């Protein structure tokens, strides 16, 4: 297991290097001169030179890349153009809010998907099964930026149960977490249903049933553990999508996380801050996928052999 974990960690390094390279490339594809974009055409020559030096644009591209990568390795993401504060510091302030939202969405998704998926698998074709299908269809047709405002309309405006926006205690977490979690739960419930149906056909589960265990004991104690690996894969993939989806959800609910920071930075043309946000979210995504792989390998030794 340790050897496998080490191998996976080493294999994640090129991906992380790719993240750095792509994020660096962002500033290079800004059409025209980024300095013009930031300062406007009418800026004085001295101001332009200072900004150029600040962004490192006065050096050849490869020197910029080396400096950028070196900075990232030391946790230095540059200085925000709009506030003058270190980018890393700003992101560290906002990161906990994003993690909190992601965790709450995950809990909401699992809490919804678990009963729905189990009920759907227990009686294929029955009401719960159809409900999970309808939820899956609704989820793809109603992306977060549609669902969020509709939830606000229903549960913050018509029925004033939760705050419309902002981060002010547990109640303010409910609607954004539901917005993100509902979408996840549909896919999760469908995956759980299909894995459970496969697991229910296993010999060991048939044996459990044959020795007279109750239906719920068979499903919960014998089929569910066998179905958990596939569900975990989907969960890990979804968690990554959740971090990216947080950009939209945080914007809808004025949630002070990294996603909203990214949108604000884009609006302010604060390129170092944009780069920092993308870098942190993408790195979190890569590391989440890595963690999913490791948890899976810990649960299922058969996976460790495959690289």
């Amino acid at each position, binding site marked *: 297991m340790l050897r496998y974990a080490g191998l996976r960690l080493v294999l994640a390094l090129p991906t992380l290097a790719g993240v750095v390279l792509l994020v660096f490339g962002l500033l290079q594809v800004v059409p025209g001169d980024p300095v013009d974009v930031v300062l406007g055409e009418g800026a004085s020559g001295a101001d332009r030179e200072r900004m150029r030096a600040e962004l490192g644009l006065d050096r050849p591209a490869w020197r910029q890349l080396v400096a950028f990568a070196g900075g990232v390795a030391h946790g230095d993401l540059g200085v925000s153009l709009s506030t003058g504060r270190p980018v890393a510091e700003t992101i560290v302030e906002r990161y906990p809010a994003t993690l909190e939202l992601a965790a709450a969405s995950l809990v909401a998704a699992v809490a919804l998907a678990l009963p729905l998926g189990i009920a759907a698998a227990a009686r294929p074709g029955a009401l719960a099964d159809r409900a999970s299908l309808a939820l899956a*269809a609704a989820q793809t*047709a109603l992306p977060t*930026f549609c669902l969020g405002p509709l939830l606000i*309309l229903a549960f913050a405006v018509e029925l004033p149960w939760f705050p419309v926006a902002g981060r002010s205690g547990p109640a303010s977490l409910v609607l954004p977490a539901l917005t993100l979690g509902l979408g996840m739960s549909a896919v999760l419930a469908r995956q759980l249903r299909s894995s459970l149906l496969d697991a229910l056909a296993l010999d060991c589960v048939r044996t459990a049933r044959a020795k007279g265990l109750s239906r719920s004991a068979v499903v919960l104690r014998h089929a569910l553990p066998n179905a958990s690996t596939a569900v975990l894969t989907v969960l890990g993939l979804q968690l990554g999508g959740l971090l990216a989806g947080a950009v939209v959800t945080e*914007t809808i609910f004025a949630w002070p996380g990294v996603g909203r920071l990214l949108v604000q930075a884009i*609006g302010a043309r604060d390129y170092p801050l944009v780069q920092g946000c993308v870098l942190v979210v993408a790195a979190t*995504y890569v590391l989440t996928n890595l963690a999913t792989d490791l948890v899976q390998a810990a649960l299922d030794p058969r996976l460790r052999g495959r690289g």
Partner: protein
Amino acid sequence: MRAAALGVPQSATGASQAGRARAWQLRVGGVLLLGLALAALLAPYLAPHDPLHQDLPHALAPPSRAHPLGTDRLGRDVLSRVLHGARLSLVVGAAAVAGALAIGVALGALAGYGGRAADALVSAAVDLLLAFPGILLAIALAAALGPSARNVALALAVLGWPGYARLARAEIRAAAARDSTRAAEALGATRLRIALRHLLPAARPALVVQATFGLAGAIVAESSLSFLGLGSPPPAPSWGAMLAEGRSFLLVAPYLVIAPALALGATVLAIQLVGDALRARDGARP
């Protein structure tokens, strides 16, 4: 497949029932999609008003005979904007998928039939890009390029190709191992001819299915980017931008949010229905 695993032979009636459900899906989805495409195409004739015409005295008017879906904060007709928005969504979505498909198929064919070095290079690039949250990169790329519909399509195409490349590579490798391909090789056909005449046609059904779902994804992504202010700059009628704008008036004019949300939902649902039916027809690949 599950029935087979349980040792239960699939009955003929079951199969034809599934076939009927499939035909129904294809019909409903196809009609919906055709209607949407027509609405998008004929938007200038169908729309009761100019989508950009401002009428401030009648701003935020509730639905009425003159404005079936009401007016927005500048007095613009919401129905006309939704109809013209369909245009933008479908065109940007289709352009993004076409671009991604073109890059993906070319590189996928190269990886699947172009020798080991090409395969290693393309596969490494595919793995790298698929290890990222695509929508985040699209946001970042569209932001760097500047807000416009063209840049949204460009960002979605540049970041959307790896999925098609992976599928094309797999399908082409499978087709290359077939006896018919071997025979063509033995007859002295050039590799390019084999790729174009034998391998790509074999890969087409799977790619069509993936591109159908890709279109739904691209339309949602376009709306997400427009919602974040990265799409066509105002006053262009885009569903995502309309949703973003309407959020401020949830209390007084909820239809400003509901109308574009429903339009987007119906579009995605229609495309998914068609995609599901196509997938089922091409031999139930999950």
